[in-house]
């Protein structure tokens, strides 16, 4: 599974960081950044929850 954040859409709400800090963190402006685009298996479920929870629909999981 791979994940990316659409930087045009991300507004830094941070729900992804709340739900899946293993995968998501903030940059120095407070916008979302993916730590590693290839997901560790243990984080897959929480990452899917993060994707569903983004108010801006900025997270996209593929594979």
């Amino acid at each position, binding site marked *: 599974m791979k994940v990316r954040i659409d930087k045009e859409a991300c*507004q*830094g*709400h*941070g*729900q992804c*960081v*709340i*739900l899946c800090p293993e995968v998501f963190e*903030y940059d*120095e*402006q*407070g916008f979302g950044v993916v730590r590693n685009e290839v997901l560790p298996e243990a984080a897959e479920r*929480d990452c899917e*929850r993060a994707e*569903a*929870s*983004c*108010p*801006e629909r900025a997270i996209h999981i593929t594979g």
Partner: protein
Amino acid sequence: MSDQEDRNRAVSEARDFNPYASEFLEREFEIYRTLREHLPVARSEAMIEPALGGGTPGGWVLTRYDDGCEVLTDPDGFSSQSQDYAVRPWIPQAIDPPMHTSYRRILNPMFTPDAMSKLEPHLYDYANELADRMLEKDSFDFVADYADPFPSVIFCELAGFPAEDYRQIMDWKNVIMHPSDGHERGRELAIEKARSMDLEVDPSEGLSTEQVLAVSAAAVGEVYQYFQGLLDARRQDPRDDLVSRLLAARFDGERPLTQEELEDTLFLLFMAGLDTVASALGLMIQDFATNEVKRKEFITILEGDDPKLLGQAIEELVRVHSIVLLPRRVTRERSFHGTRFRADDGVLVPTQGINRDPEQFPNPDELDYTRFPNRHAGFGLGPHRCLGIHLARRELRVALQVFLQKCPDFQVDPNRKANRFGGMKGLATLPLVKG
């Protein structure tokens, strides 16, 4: 009731819709539900926020989550320069991209979770101090003694407003934001100010719209003067605070902020940073006072070991107790889901309305700490997403945790009345008793 009767009723509700009046609060969610079900794009002729500069009464009100999102994520079609301003538009709240983006680039790093985490020990110290003092008595005012001072003092310190000016800052805030929405102290201050300006006021009637505008303009003028003094002081003697950082900032990396930009930014921080967390806390605890099951469930989550669950629970509390009404101005004539919007029409997105849309939030009136997904708009949506979001979340968590740990059982004081106010709603007072 027939569809036509339902729609007529909704049209009538819409026409009189005025969320700034305190009477609105009694039927708030019922009204939002009526509008959402029968007239999701509704025309109000009564909606006016005189304290914020007046403007033409009336506008469109949106109550569907999807419609609200559409507006909030389209700054090109729906401008944030949506009101008349007493001095100038607030920065960055009343500014549109691309300039908005440049201002946020200066402010964002000052409000990241990392930047806010440095405040944490101070938040706990201060919450503990306030709570201990408040809980010496068996009956107390949760808002006056805790919910109001806690975020406001922290915010003043962060911004660089001197601690000794705190009372004056709160009075200015109350007279500017709450002259006629039911807030008793705001009303009192507004009447006092009007009289000092030789305006005749009948205290049983309160201020007229023109008087509110005059009082507000005068108070805003005083606040701007205060900021001028503060900016001068920090120019001489910079400190580790927001005012000093704003003085050092460079717009697009190229030029310092002008005097006007500095003042307009400080004014926005003043308007946005003082009431919001206090109001949310008051509403949350008022709810907990009569909802033991949800209170105990939240205490269990607070005491538990699951930060993800706690984070989600705080988000759900923010959703249910959303307080912000978001105004926009239509930039060009267009059709919006079958309704004709004219250029310069006002559009209001009440976050408390769209956050209860059952299509997005099943059982929307229920506080469900594990609600998923929870794409709530309590902190706004789109580029104007709340700058203070990370500070707010942290303050809510600490304030609730400290209070509920020391006082897990409480009720509304049967002998005293809470003072609710409308608009960017909240509680000015919340008398409680232990047990």
